[in-house]
């Protein structure tokens, strides 16, 4: 199997970089996989409320084995802790919170992101079915959608594209994308580079991206 080496930020650094964007007072929903690492990031004195699809509002870090409460999981099935002021609601109320626009940002993994802010994360080309979970509700209704993904597939194909090739989860919603190469913002025609990971050049990022890249401040 051909594969490119992973360069730039590691998974935790990608998560950290997006978590830096969380603003004081935000309500944040973290998807399964790399996004859950955002809750490991030290957010200083910012007040961030983590919401999980299963109705757990105000959860905290994952607990080590032996200290878990087995009745308590986040949306990824990890045994988390609760912060003071936590509350539990059922699934319909939890998605009511999502659909009514109260989630300031949802951070999700994806297979592809397009220049127009579409993204695909529920169905691979070969499968008859897929795994939607809460992704479509969150994507359609959260105030912001941030995506974390490896910049390229294992085969070296770009994941940041002019148009998604896989069935989309939602259209025109992604505003910020963290990859191992840096931080990018879909701008309709391509992606604006907000920041590059250490050791990554603009030219390298451009070569590995399936849509035009523009450098912010350099037009």
């Amino acid at each position, binding site marked *: 199997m051909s594969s490119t080496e992973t360069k730039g930020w590691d998974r935790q650094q990608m998560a950290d970089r997006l978590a830096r964007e969380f603003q004081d007072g935000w309500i944040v929903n973290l998807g*399964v*996989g790399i996004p859950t690492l955002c809750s490991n990031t030290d957010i200083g004195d910012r007040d961030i409320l983590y919401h*999980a*699809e*299963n*109705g*757990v509002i105000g959860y905290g870090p994952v607990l080590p084995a032996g200290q*878990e*409460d*087995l*009745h*308590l*999981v986040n*949306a*990824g*099935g990890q045994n988390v802790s*609760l912060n003071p002021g936590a509350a*539990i*609601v*059922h*699934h*319909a109320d*939890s*998605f009511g919170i*999502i*659909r009514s626009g109260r989630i300031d940002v949802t951070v999700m993994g994806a297979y592809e992101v397009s220049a127009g802010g579409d993204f695909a994360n529920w*169905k*691979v080309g070969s*499968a*008859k*079915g*897929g*795994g*939607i*979970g*809460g*992704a*479509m*509700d969150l994507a*359609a*209704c959260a105030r912001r959608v941030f995506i974390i993904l490896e910049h390229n597939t294992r085969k070296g194909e770009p994941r940041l594209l002019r148009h998604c090739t896989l*069935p*989309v*989860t*939602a*259209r025109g919603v992604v505003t910020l994308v963290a990859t191992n190469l840096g931080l990018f913002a879909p701008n309709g025609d391509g992606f604006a580079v907000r920041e590059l990971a250490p050791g990554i050049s603009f030219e390298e990022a451009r070569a590995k991206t399936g849509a035009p890249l523009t450098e912010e401040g350099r037009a």
Partner: protein
Amino acid sequence: MARNKILDSFAAAIADIPDGATVAFGGFAGPGTPYNLTKALLEQGAKRLTCIANTTGGAHQPRMPDIGMLVENGQVAKVVCSFTAATRPTDVLPFTPYYERGEVEAELVPQGTLAERLRAAGAGIPAFYTPTAVGTELAEGRETRVINGREYLLEYALPCDYAFIRAWRADAAGNLQFRLAQRNFCPLMAMAAKTVVVEVEEDILPAGAIDPDQVHVSGIFVQRLVKIPPAPEGLWTVRRQERAR
């Protein structure tokens, strides 16, 4: 005469489920999942079932009784769920090959829409509009409507004949309490079902022992309660079994 809702065995609690019934299964990533009732249904053998749940299960080891096993046992005609494939494309759910071969039908529903359709059934709302899935493959060919400038998808209520749920505590009147993430879909399935069957972790309390302000599901929705016996007869969650029993 107050009707007795407490039954001695899971088998007795689900004995009447006919072929072709629609059964909803509570639970999300473990908590609230009715392992014991599912096991009893595997033994009871009803066929051509429609199973409603967030997932069909089987993504993790050791495996617990799940819809995937009912599929393997030839009992399932259709599933309605938010995952017909695993979250990670490299995982394969036991259900998936049956679906890909066309042996079982599946209706893939976004998780929030699944919750809301169950809630609608329980609330006497036959249909509603939602922003979720607009513009996606799931909305192709389906009815949409623009309201205040935004496009919404029409979704129908999802009623069921039976709901299997797991609760932390119950009283003899059928009032239920869940602990933490155990709540998830369980109250919605209880509302949506004609017959609600509950496996209960703690000893079933006398009617009135639960503060009316702290009831999560009113006994008005609940018909049958079974206390989970100690392991190994009763199935607890995998990790609870490992740890405490």
